[in-house]
């Protein structure tokens, strides 16, 4: 059996609903991952702390408010402070190309637009974590 992969799904910033984040969280669960879902209105501190306490392999952020350039650098900094540079950070939202480049420089490895399918996201995570491409089978 392969090691259980743990993923934090969080929605930083002040924008209200989390339908998209929930859809992704469910898709990740259905792909065999353990998803720690923390919901909306997360501060960077809350996210970094949750990532640390839950010892996650992946942090998935959903930001639709446009505040990604304010939030993500701070989150990366707090993860770094906690010695968590090895954690895979992926981001979903409406992110302009030039911002994508800047975020990737900060260590964000996957940026997904609103059109991305959940399968794409799952496949990306599996590949980044060097997991076999086939989804985990029920035990």
């Amino acid at each position, binding site marked *: 059996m392969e090691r259980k992969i743990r993923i934090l799904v969080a929605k930083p910033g002040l924008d209200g609903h989390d339908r998209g984040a929930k859809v992704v969280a469910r898709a990740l669960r259905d792909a065999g991952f353990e998803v720690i879902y923390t919901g909306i*209105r997360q501060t960077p501190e809350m996210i970094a702390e949750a990532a640390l306490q839950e010892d996650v392999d992946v942090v998935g952020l959903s930001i639709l408010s446009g505040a990604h350039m304010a939030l993500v650098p701070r989150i990366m900094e707090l993860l770094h402070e*906690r010695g968590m540079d090895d954690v895979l950070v992926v981001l979903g939202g409406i992110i302009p190309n030039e911002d994508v480049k800047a975020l990737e420089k900060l260590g964000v490895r996957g940026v997904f637009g609103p059109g991305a399918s959940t399968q794409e996201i799952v496949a990306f995570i599996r590949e980044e974590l060097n997991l076999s491409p086939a989804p985990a089978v029920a035990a």
Partner: protein
Amino acid sequence: MTIPLIQAMLNGNRRALARIISQVENDGPEARALLAELYPRTGQAHIVGITGAPGTGKSTLVNALAQLYRQQETPPKVGIIAVDPTSPFSGGALLGDRVRMQNMAGDRGVFIRSMATRGSLGGLARTTADVAMVLDAAGFSRILVETVGVGQAEVDIANMAHTTIVVEAPGLGDEIQAIKAGVLEIADIFAVNKADRDGVNRTVMALEMMLGSGMQVVSHHGRVMKVDTAAQTPAWRPPIVKTIALRHDGVSDLLQAIEQHRSYLWQAGQWQRREAERLRHVLLHVVQDEIMARFRRHVSEEQFQHVVAELLARRIDPYTAAEQLIDAVPQQR
């Protein structure tokens, strides 16, 4: 020699603590050595189980309780373990209890860990007691364990906690029927949450009725104890506490009830007995798991399939077959 990861944890490194928990949860290569070294440091924590049907407000209550503990004059460090079910289809899990536990991110005296049941059928994961041990060794003197709340959750948590809180809420239908059979035997405290809703008093009354007025016989941790009128120590009568977890209402009463139960266990000489019972269950679980693991190591799937074929052909019966398979497992590991 101290394992470096443990040294780091004891120095207050929270990442090390999180890593040790993962090792233990995954039964990783270092898990045994870690637990062996940590075990002598355990036995300090008061483990409080919180069980009850999904949606009754367990996570919200845990959040309110933890915050209140942290506001005390000499605040204890609070560890939280929140268990949610693993999907039997995908093996994945959606762990959502943290949604209700938001305000403690800046508090170093609180550590929250979500756990998936990973195939365990009860309300806890197989390694939940081990994770509690790690938190205990790390100096968390109150450990709140939120169960899944379905299946045999009550029995599981009562076996691992010092104090078990059963959470009920009004509006789950017929009161008496809604209150699960078995909770009376294991509850040390009842919390009737959502006291802002209609029907609270009916739920409280239903509980009172079920608990009986005279309390001639008190059930405690699955064991019916006759109240010995001659004994100096009165039996514990599970209090019923009304709470509105969302507004932190009644939560101080609940905390007080927990602390009273703790004093009761100590004063009545029950703490050691309770500990022995707890550890007995821990040991029993480990023995079962170890025996199964040894069996799996020595009996190949092929061998197993072969015996199944023999059963299918009615050439052997299940009991004789099992005996033969078990006899083939060597005594040494």
